[in-house]
């Protein structure tokens, strides 16, 4: 939500400046979410949900300051590990991406929507539905080949298509405001805390967890469509399995908190890798970041390593600034920032709503975008109430155009034959993975190996 709003606020800045602000917002938001998770047991972003378990348990034991110190060190080290892989993998993956044709891109977009639908939220079927709805939304307006107007019912504004950022501000921002006011949080009491400066021993003793979670987080970030929340949970689960004291997890385990915080922040640079190399976002916030890059005239994708390789390292440097930022603010401003948590919702919500409205209008100076924001806010709110996840919807909207272009281009190239979609080596691998992901959601398929073994044993 913060990222979508900041995109609208940074429109008139120089591209490099704007992207620096946005990357700092992205890294900062994923890190900052741990504050409310530890102090209030309310994750500031979905990515911090895993930090609630041990972070808040530590706070209840009177160790909130120590927990926040661990969160700061975990987040900083996680971002650094992710950054290292960002610098290392982007050129390699960029090289590989040059081998991708329309067929591969088509499957990659489908993969992003399907895996995001499967893993975010707890109901894959609803996740897929949200994802395909997102792909459809992207199909509204003029299509790419003949500029034929679709589903616009004669409306001129709609013929231009649904603009990304107002839709994102609506789905993440306005929908969230409605949900927040519905749930209505009472004024909070914050656990008192001592120093937030991390102890060196808390870091050195958990170096294995930090390295492991950093790698897991980065890898999950690279996978299109799977974001910071999954990275945090996966790192947490892996740390629990590897731990000598798994029974402490959920009751204030330093290892658990360190894993969750390192994992989700390592995911941020990880999620930027496919944005840069494939123009396919690794997570929902990365999708917003990609939309912002497009607005500022940066064209991410396989050609980026050829046309502007410097940009990749600019992004790495921006991540570095963001890391310094969270380290500095995390250690100095925590006491002040926790005051924000005490501002009543009834005061915060109208101010944010004003920003959502102004931000949506500011992009193109037309009222239609405000309507789009409101419409997607209402749609997002209803879908949320029915337990449909937002991330696949957003990813669908971002990937829809590439998906359609790739499918039609592929069909033209193959003269209508579907064979290359299924037989080219990289395509083959991707569609088999997609088929497995979908098939494994059905009990009958999951039971198949057991039945086969039983049949063979007989």
């Amino acid at each position, binding site marked *: 939500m913060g990222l979508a709003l900041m995109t609208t606020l*940074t429109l*008139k800045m120089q591209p490099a400046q704007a992207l620096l602000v946005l990357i700092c917002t992205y890294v900062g938001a994923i890190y900052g979410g741990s504050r409310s998770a530890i102090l209030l047991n*309310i*994750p500031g972003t*979905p990515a911090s*949900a*895993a930090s*609630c*378990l041990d972070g808040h348990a530590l706070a209840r034991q009177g160790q909130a300051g120590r927990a926040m110190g661990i969160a700061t060190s975990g987040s900083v080290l996680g971002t650094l590990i992710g950054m290292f892989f960002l610098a290392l993998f982007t050129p390699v993956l960029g090289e590989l991406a040059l081998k991708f044709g329309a067929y591969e891109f088509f499957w990659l977009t489908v993969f992003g929507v399907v895996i995001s639908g499967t*893993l*975010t939220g*707890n109901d894959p*079927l609803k996740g*897929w*539905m949200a994802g*395909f*709805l997102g*792909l*459809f939304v992207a*199909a509204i307006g003029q299509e790419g*080949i*003949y500029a*034929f107007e*679709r*589903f616009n019912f004669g409306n001129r504004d709609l013929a231009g298509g649904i603009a990304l950022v107002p839709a994102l501000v609506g789905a993440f921002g306005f929908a969230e*405001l409605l949900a927040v*006011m*519905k*749930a*209505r*949080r009472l004024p909070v009491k914050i656990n008192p805390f001592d120093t937030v400066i991390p102890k060196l021993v808390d870091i050195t003793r958990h170096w294995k967890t930090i390295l492991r979670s950093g790698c897991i987080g980065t890898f999950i970030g690279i996978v299109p469509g799977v974001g910071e*929340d999954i990275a945090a*949970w996966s790192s947490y689960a892996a740390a629990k399995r590897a731990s000598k004291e798994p029974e402490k997890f959920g009751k204030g385990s330093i290892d658990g908190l360190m894993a969750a915080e390192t994992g989700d922040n390592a995911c941020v640079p990880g999620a930027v890798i496919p944005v840069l190399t494939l123009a396919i976002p690794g997570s929902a916030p990365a999708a917003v970041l990609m939309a912002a890059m497009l607005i500022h005239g940066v064209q991410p994708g396989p050609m980026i390593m050829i046309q502007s390789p410097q940009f990749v390292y600019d992004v790495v440097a921006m991540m570095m600034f963001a890391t310094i930022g969270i380290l500095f603010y995390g250690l100095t401003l925590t006491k002040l920032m926790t005051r924000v948590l005490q501002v*009543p919702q*009834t*005061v915060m*919500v*109208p*101010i944010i*709503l*004003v*920003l959502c*409205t*102004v931000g949506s*209008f*500011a992009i193109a100076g037309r*009222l239609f975008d*405000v*309507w789009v924001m*409101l419409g997607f806010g209402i749609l997002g709110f209803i879908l949320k*109430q*029915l*337990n449909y*996840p937002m991330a696949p919807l957003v990813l669908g909207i971002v990937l829809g155009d590439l998906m*359609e272009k790739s*499918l*039609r281009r592929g*069909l*033209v190239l193959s003269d*209508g034959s579907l064979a290359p979609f299924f037989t080219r080596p990289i395509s083959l691998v991707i569609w088999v993975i997609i088929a497995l992901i979908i098939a494994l959601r059905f009990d009958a398929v999951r039971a198949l190996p057991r039945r086969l073994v039983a049949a063979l044993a007989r």
Partner: protein
Amino acid sequence: MSAETETTESGGTEIEVSPRADLISAFVWVAFGLAVAIASWRMDRLESQGATPYTAPGLVPGILGAIMVLLGIMLAVRAARAGGHRLGATPWLPSAGGRAAMARAGWVLVMGLLYAAGMVGHGGIPFWLATFIFVTLFILLFDLRARAAKDETVKGIVLAIAVGAGTAFLVSYVFQELFLVRLP
């Protein structure tokens, strides 16, 4: 954390949705998917411009519509199996608390629409005034009753006016002067 959501170890928050609500939403999906598929089928295939069936504008939305119908049917079957077709299984009206919660969200929506579309869009009121009225009214609407119960009515009104005026001034100034954005 609200009463109806809880953080689960599998990740994310979980909201209880009744099978009946799922069944109804499944019907909406099927209807929507069908509408999309039919509209795509009837869409001009631009053969006169040399379009082949696989470059026809309706191809992709048609496929997406069909997939939404399929997924909608799967959701309907699942919801019906869970008992969603039994109309009296769960009460139709939410509890008093649930109604109050929905009413709050409804009011936010109404206020948002009035502000964004009504005042800012067509009202002819200057942006700063619309923002001032909106923020102040919003805080009064949602905050004043609780303040009144604590005998802080005057404080509540002063706070609402101060935040309203502050927001109106800051947003107008920051957007116009610093971000150089044209305001509605």
